[in-house]
């Protein structure tokens, strides 16, 4: 029982940063823009969040700065992919390279020459259910994890499906010509989607540096952005299904670490455990991907004829 409780608690923790980014990507793709800048935006958010928290002494200022930096990164992506109509793969990967390089460059200017990575006191974990069995240890989570699962995901879902803005956002990703004909500014909606998406991606990165670690190093994101993109497809561009995907990934990730620590002496190499989360994600993609209904206008820059 303890095993399952600690596994579940770890699952939520591991899933948080990936889920935030995946919800962000859901928004950009729903509006018709594949944002491959996700990995770089997470990294940028992790750095800016850490840097601002370090100099200001306030974790919340750091988080806010990270979100603003992510919004700016999203707007930069919009400038290229929406206004200039640059190929989304090129502009997205370019954005990831740009933001990764920029973050490391700034990191070296500020923290260069340190033998150990700089660290700050991270966000504390909450434990609302105290010492109650099961619920107590399970509820020991960061506030950002609570916000992500209980506020951001439902809110993202509600906005997407039950508001005028959400309707326009989905329509822009399916049939921008029709939306334009109805008098809605396609560019403005896509800019907004990329700004929201960038903010969420950066928040996902900042969760790593401000909550989970309280430190910034290169490699802090380590491909979590790419995993998030796979989860968006798995989740069929629906915030709740994307959440399910992030829990499956986080769960197998936490499980494999526990299997390694148990010393099972199985006749299989430990790499089998390490590959588990990715294998499960690929398997889930293959099964769910058959029914994937891509936003019809994904990857297509909109141009008025």
């Amino acid at each position, binding site marked *: 029982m303890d095993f399952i409780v600690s596994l579940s608690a*770890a699952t939520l*923790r591991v899933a948080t940063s990936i889920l935030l980014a995946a919800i962000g990507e859901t928004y950009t793709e729903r509006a018709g823009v594949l944002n491959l800048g996700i990995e770089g935006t997470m990294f940028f958010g992790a750095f800016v969040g850490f840097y601002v928290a370090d100099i200001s002494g306030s974790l919340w200022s750091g988080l806010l700065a990270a979100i603003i930096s992510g919004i700016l990164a999203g707007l930069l992506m919009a400038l290229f992919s929406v206004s200039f109509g*640059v190929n989304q793969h090129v502009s997205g990967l370019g954005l990831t390279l740009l933001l990764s390089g920029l973050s490391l460059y700034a990191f070296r200017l500020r923290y260069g020459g340190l033998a150990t990575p700089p660290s700050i006191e991270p966000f504390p974990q909450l434990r609302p259910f105290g010492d109650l069995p099961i619920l107590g240890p399970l509820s020991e989570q960061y506030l950002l994890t609570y916000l992500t699962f209980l506020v951001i995901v439902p809110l993202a879902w509600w906005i997407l499906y039950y508001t005028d803005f959400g309707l326009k956002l989905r329509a822009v990703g399916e049939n921008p010509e029709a939306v334009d004909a109805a008098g809605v500014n396609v560019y403005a909606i896509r800019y907004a989607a990329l700004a929201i998406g960038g903010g969420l991606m950066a928040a996902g990165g900042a969760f790593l540096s401000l909550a989970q670690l309280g*430190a910034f190093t290169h*490699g802090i994101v380590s491909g979590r952005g790419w995993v998030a993109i796979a989860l968006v497809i798995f989740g069929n561009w629906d915030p709740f299904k994307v959440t399910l995907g992030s829990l499956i990934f986080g769960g197998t990730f936490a499980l494999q670490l526990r299997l390694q620590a148990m*010393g099972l002496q199985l006749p299989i190499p430990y790499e089998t455990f390490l590959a588990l989360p990715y294998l499960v994600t690929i398997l889930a993609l293959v099964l769910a991907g058959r029914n994937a209904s891509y936003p019809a206008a994904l990857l297509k820059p909109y141009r008025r004829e």
Partner: protein
Amino acid sequence: MSLKRLGLIVVIAAIALLSVQCSPAQKPAQEESKVPYIYAAYATPIEEPWDGVIHAALQKAADEGKIKYEWTDDIGYSGDMERILREVAEQKKPDAIFGDAFGNEEAVRRVAADYPDIAFVFGSGLGPSEPNVSVFDNWIHEPAYLCGLIAGGVTKSNVIGVVGGYPVPEVNRIVNAFIQGAKESNPDAKVLVTFINSWFDPAAAKEAALAQIDSGADVLFAERFGVIEAAVEKNVYAFGNMSDQYDLGPDHVITGPVWDMSPTVEYVIKQLNAKSYTAQDLRDFSMMAKGGASLAPYHGMDSKIPADTLKLVKQREQELKTGMFRLDIDEAQPASDS
């Protein structure tokens, strides 16, 4: 359409500009022509601890006026090493080139063969090569063994966790020495070993450490960054690695194996000055007897170690330093005890 092309050009220009800025060739501190001119070519960013140790030792020698030092980093493993080494050898003509050859072994040795008058001193898991390739490595298994002795002494649960990057020989021998020490001071100790298959994923390393704590571990060996954060959060003891990492977890980090490249660098400088450079395996200069490996300062944490354990550690430390005790090297892949 021209707008689209303009955008594309701007993106490419921005990337090009940035990648140039990201690997700044450092200006030499001084233009003294008599001291040896050493160039370093690092495959990873110098923030990575392995290359960071080499850089720190060379920078120290440069600050002391013993060498003229320039470097470039983040060269990677996709073919740039050979080009950069050739450019450096042709245009800069240094007396010696330092670096890490892991992942670039063939490129380094190919270039070295073409420039026999330049000393190539590289971190490598392979052997030296006449006339000019010397190799070194982080031979810090001895202090890792001492840390294991301490871990066996301080554990209350008799479960000790180790989180490593990849099970490569350099990591295996450190982890195995740690385990050997732990079992020597505490035969009942059970050691959990987790690899995260990354050199740099502190969030994964922390999760791995938390999983070990859930399995009962109350002392952790942080071969990678991220583990100490878990030790602080769950209030257990930890050992750092490569450098003095007490600052990452005061009151939690007891000590840790430390690698110092200065003895290696000093020795090569001496050889260069005497025009007596020879290709050799420089491993001894990274071990305890010659000061290349040591235990990180305790920062008062030795008060947490049981007296008899501390006595044993001090005795073994002395024996290692004076050459009276030689630790066997075991590079087989370690696994968790069941």
